[in-house]
C-alpha cells in the first residue's frame, strides 16, 4: 500500500501514440519525495546533455507533489519540468496552482511523462484508468481558457481539469506558458515544449482514493495549519509593505495599495524607478478601475487564501479571465503608462495566448527601446503605432504568431538581441542564464539577493526568496517579531533572530554585513524551503514565500511523516532538499552550467563590489560543497547518495576524481 502518492506514472509517447501506466519505486519517495525531486531524477536518467529543446527526446513532465490529494491545505501545485528549456538550454522548470495536480492524483497518477512528438495537434484525456489521445485539430489557434471550456463541453465532463497552451505555445514562442484556471506555469518555455510535441491540452478527471498513513495525526496537523492561517490573516507583519504583510501571493487582487511595486520596481524595459508615482489621484483612479474589473476573489484547491480574481469588465471588451499577483502591473509598468485598464486588457489577451506575463512585457519594452534607438526600423515594424499601449498590443500579436520581427522577439531578449545585432546586445541588460529577471534596479548591493539571483536555477527570484523581510524592521518591533518566530530552522534559530535584531543598526548594513557565513545560511534557508515545497506540491504562498508562513521546517517533517509513513525529521528533510538541490545543479552542470552563469544582471545594483562579489560566490560554493566552477564535488554528491551522478560527471571530464571541497566545508559536512 502506498500512502500519499499513487505509486504510478503515466507514460505517453506521442510519436507512437502509446500509453502506459508504470509503477514507481518507493525508494525514490524516500530520497526525493515527489514533484520536482522525482522529476529531476527522471530527467537525469532519460535526457542526456545532447538533447535539444525541440527534439522528440526532450521530456515534458507534469507532476503532482507528494502531499497533493491528501487534506494538506494548499497542496495543489502542478510542477512542470522539461529536460531542456528553449531559452536557457538548462532544465525547464515552472509551476502552477489551481486544481490540476490533485485531480491527477485522484485519477491514479503522480505524474504524466510525455515524450515524442505527435504529427497532428492532439490532446490527452485522462479519465481515471481510461486514457486517450484525441484529435485537437479543431482547437488549433484557440485561447488557453477557451480550449479548456471547449474540451469540458466536448467530453461532457464539467469537472475535468484542463491544462492547455494558447497560440504562443503552438508557435513555440520561447516564453510560452501552460495555462490552467487562474494559474500559469509560465517560466522557461514549457508551453513551447508542449506545442512542439503537438499537445494542445491535457484534461484529467479522477475519482480514486488517496490514502494517508496516520489519519488522525495528519488531520490534526492540517487543522493546526488552518487555525494558524486564520490567525495569521488577522495578524499581519508590521513594518513591511501591505501587500507583503499577510500570507499567500502578494495580495494584489484584494488590496488596491500599489505604492510598493510602482515606486520600488523599475518601469519601461526595467530601466527606471518612479519614486513619486503613487499619489492620491492615481490611487483613486486605480481603485475605481480595480473595483470595476474584479468580480470575485478566488482560491486554488483546498486553500482559503484568495490570491486570484475573476476579471470581467465590459470596458475591456474581453472574455472573462482570471489573474493574480503582480501580473496586474507588469505590462502597465513595462509600457510606462499610468492606465491600469490597459494592464487588465493586455494581460487578459496574453493569458489566452499563453505567454509569460513576466518575460513578455520586458521583450516588448526591449523592442520599443531598439526602435527608438534606430536599431529596429519601420521596415522591421511596419505600421508601428505611436503610443506605447498600442505598440504593446501590436507586438503581442506579432510575437504569438511569430510574424515578421515577432519571429525573432519570440525567442526572448537574450536570443533576439543576438539575432538582431547592430548593438542590440547592449540592450540585453536584465537577463541571467539567458532568462528575463525581476524588474528591479536598486542602489546598494544586497549580498543575499546577489547569491539568490545569481545561483538560483529556477531563474525566478520569487521562487527562491522568502521568510525574511526585504529591509530592516523598525527598531521597536524587532523584539516582538522574533518572539513567535517559530519558522526558523533549529540549527540557525539563534543566529537568524540575532540577524533580525541587529539588521539596520549602525554599521549593520549591506553590503559587508551580515558576515558571509550568515549570508550563505540565509540563502540556503530560503532556497531549501522552496525546494521542499516544489516536491510536496504545497503552495509557496503558504510556505516558502511569505514571512512567518503556516508551513515551515518544523511542521513539514511531521506532515510528511504522517502522510507517507516515512520517518522524517527536520535534519532528514533538510538533507532531502539538499539532495534535490544538488541534483538540479548537477543536471544543469552536465548541460554546461558554470560559474559564468551565476551572476545577476550587471545593473541590478548601482553600487557593485566586484572583488567582494567573487568572494561571496567563492564562499557560497564552498558552503554548498561545490568547486570553484559551481559544480558539486564528488564528495558532496556521494554524501547525498548521488554516486552515479558524480561518476557520470567524472566520466564526462566535467568533474575530477580527486576533487574534494575545501577543509571548512568538509568539517561542516562531517558535523552533520
Amino acid at each position, binding site marked *: 500500500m502506498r500512502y500519499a502518492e499513487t505509486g504510478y506514472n503515466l507514460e505517453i509517447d506521442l510519436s507512437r501514440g502509446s500509453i502506459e501506466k508504470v509503477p514507481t519505486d518507493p525508494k525514490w519517495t524516500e530520497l526525493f519525495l515527489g514533484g520536482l525531486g522525482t522529476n529531476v531524477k527522471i530527467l537525469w536518467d532519460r535526457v542526456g546533455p545532447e538533447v535539444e529543446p525541440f527534439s522528440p527526446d526532450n521530456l515534458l513532465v507534469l507532476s503532482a507533489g507528494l502531499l497533493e490529494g491528501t487534506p494538506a491545505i494548499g497542496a495543489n501545485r502542478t510542477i512542470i519540468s522539461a529536460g531542456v528549456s528553449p531559452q536557457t538550454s538548462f532544465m525547464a522548470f515552472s509551476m502552477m496552482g489551481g486544481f490540476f495536480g490533485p485531480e491527477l492524483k485522484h485519477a491514479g497518477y503522480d505524474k504524466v511523462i510525455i515524450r515524442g512528438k505527435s504529427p497532428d495537434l492532439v490532446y490527452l484525456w485522462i479519465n481515471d484508468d481510461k486514457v486517450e489521445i484525441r484529435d485537437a485539430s479543431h482547437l488549433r489557434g484557440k485561447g488557453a481558457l477557451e480550449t479548456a471550456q471547449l474540451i469540458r463541453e466536448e467530453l461532457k465532463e464539467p469537472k475535468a481539469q484542463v491544462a492547455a497552451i494558447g497560440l504562443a505555445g503552438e508557435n513555440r514562442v520561447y516564453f510560452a506558458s501552460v495555462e490552467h484556471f487562474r494559474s500559469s506555469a509560465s517560466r522557461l518555455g514549457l508551453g513551447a515544449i508542449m506545442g512542439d510535441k503537438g499537445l494542445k491540452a491535457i484534461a484529467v478527471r479522477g475519482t480514486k482514493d488517496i490514502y494517508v498513513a496516520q489519519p488522525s495525526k495528519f488531520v490534526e496537523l492540517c487543522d493546526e495549519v*488552518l487555525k494558524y492561517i486564520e490567525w495569521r490573516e488577522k495578524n499581519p507583519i508590521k513594518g513591511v509593505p501591505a501587500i507583503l504583510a499577510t500570507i499567500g501571493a502578494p495580495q494584489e487582487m484584494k488590496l488596491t495599495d500599489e505604492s510598493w511595486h510602482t515606486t520600488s520596481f523599475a518601469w519601461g524595459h526595467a530601466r527606471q524607478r518612479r519614486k513619486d508615482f503613487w499619489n492620491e489621484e492615481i490611487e483613486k483612479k486605480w481603485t475605481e478601475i480595480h473595483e470595476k474589473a474584479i468580480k470575485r476573489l478566488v482560491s486554488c484547491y483546498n486553500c482559503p487564501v484568495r490570491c486570484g480574481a475573476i476579471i470581467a469588465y465590459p470596458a475591456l471588451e474581453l472574455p472573462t479571465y482570471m489573474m493574480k499577483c503582480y501580473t496586474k502591473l507588469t505590462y502597465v509598468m513595462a509600457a510606462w503608462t499610468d492606465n491600469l485598464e490597459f494592464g487588465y486588457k493586455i494581460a487578459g489577451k496574453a493569458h489566452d495566448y499563453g505567454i509569460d506575463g513576466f518575460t513578455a512585457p520586458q521583450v516588448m519594452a526591449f523592442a520599443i527601446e531598439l526602435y527608438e534607438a534606430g536599431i529596429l526600423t519601420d521596415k522591421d515594424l511596419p505600421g508601428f503605432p505611436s503610443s506605447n499601449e498600442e505598440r504593446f498590443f501590436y507586438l503581442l500579436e506579432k510575437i504569438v504568431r511569430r510574424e515578421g520581427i515577432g519571429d525573432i522577439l519570440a525567442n526572448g531578449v537574450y536570443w533576439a538581441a543576438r539575432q538582431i545585432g547592430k548593438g542590440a546586445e547592449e540592450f540585453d541588460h536584465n537577463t541571467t542564464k539567458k532568462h528575463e529577471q525581476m524588474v528591479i534596479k536598486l542602489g546598494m548591493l544586497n549580498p543575499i539577493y546577489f547569491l539568490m539571483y545569481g545561483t538560483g536555477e529556477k531563474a525566478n527570484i520569487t521562487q527562491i526568496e522568502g521568510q525574511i523581510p526585504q529591509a530592516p524592521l523598525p527598531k521597536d518591533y524587532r523584539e516582538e517579531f522574533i518572539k513567535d518566530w517559530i519558522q526558523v530552522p533549529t540549527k540557525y534559530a539563534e543566529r537568524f533572530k540575532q540577524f533580525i535584531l541587529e539588521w539596520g543598526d549602525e554599521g549593520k548594513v549591506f553590503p559587508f554585513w551580515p558576515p558571509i557565513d550568515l549570508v550563505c545560511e540565509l540563502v540556503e534557508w530560503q532556497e531549501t524551503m522552496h525546494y521542499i515545497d516544489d516536491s510536496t506540491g504545497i503552495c509557496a504562498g503558504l510556505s516558502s514565500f511569505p514571512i512567518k508562513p503556516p508551513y515551515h521546517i518544523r511542521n513539514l517533517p511531521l506532515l510528511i511523516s504522517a502522510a507517507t509513513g516515512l520517518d522524517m525529521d527536520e535534519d532528514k528533510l533538510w538533507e532531502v532538499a539538499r539532495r534535490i538541490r544538488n541534483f538540479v545543479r548537477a543536471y544543469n552542470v552536465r548541460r554546461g552550467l558554470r560559474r559564468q552563469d551565476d551572476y545577476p544582471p550587471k545593473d541590478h545594483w548601482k553600487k557593485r563590489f566586484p572583488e567582494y562579489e567573487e568572494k561571496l560566490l567563492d564562499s557560497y560554493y564552498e558552503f554548498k560543497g561545490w568547486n570553484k566552477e559551481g559544480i558539486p564535488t564528488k564528495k558532496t554528491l556521494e554524501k547525498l547518495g548521488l554516486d552515479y551522478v558524480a561518476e557520470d560527471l567524472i566520466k564526462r571530464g566535467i568533474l575530477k576524481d580527486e576533487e574534494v571541497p575545501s577543509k571548512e566545508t568538509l568539517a561542516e559536512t562531517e558535523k552533520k
Partner: protein
Amino acid sequence: MAKKKVKVIKVNADECNGCRACEVFCAAFHAQPQYSSVNPAKARIRVIHDPIKNIFLPVLAGPHTEAECLARDKYTVDGKEYEECAFCRAAACPSREVFKDPDSGLPLKCDACETEPPLEEPWCVKVCLVDALTYEEREEEVEEEKLDELEIGLESLVNRYGLDKVMDTMARIAASKRG
C-alpha cells in the same frame, strides 16, 4: 410542548472562493477508517465551480432518490445559466453521477458529520474560512401528538404485561374471532 433539534448549514454562495476544502474534509471524515483517505468524488457536498461564468455554488447532498424526475430543471439566475439539476440535492439519482459513491454506487447523504462525541460544527463549515458555509443549531418546538383512549389503554397493558405477551394475546383473540 416538545423540542426538536434542527441543524442548518447555511450557504452563502456569494462568499464562496471555489477552493473545495469542504469536499476534501467531508470525504476524509466519512472515509473508513475515519480520515484514512480522501476522495472528493465521495464527498457529500459539491461545489459547482465555473469561474468563467462566476458560478460558485456549494450544494449539500440530500436524501436518496430511486427514480429520476419526470421533468428536469435548468435555472438561469442573474443572467448565469446553471447546469441541469444544479440545485437538486438528491443522492444517487439515476440521471447523473452526483452524490453516488464512485466505487459502490451507493447514495451519499450529508449527515452534518454526526459522531460521538459530537463535533462543534460539520467539517465543511469548519474548514470554510471565507464563511460561505456557516452552521446553526436551533431548537424548534413541536406539537406533541395526543394519544387516543384505546392507545392509552393498550399502552398500560403493555407496561403491565410486556409487549410480547400483549401481542400474543391479541393474535390469539384475532384468530378465534375470525374463526
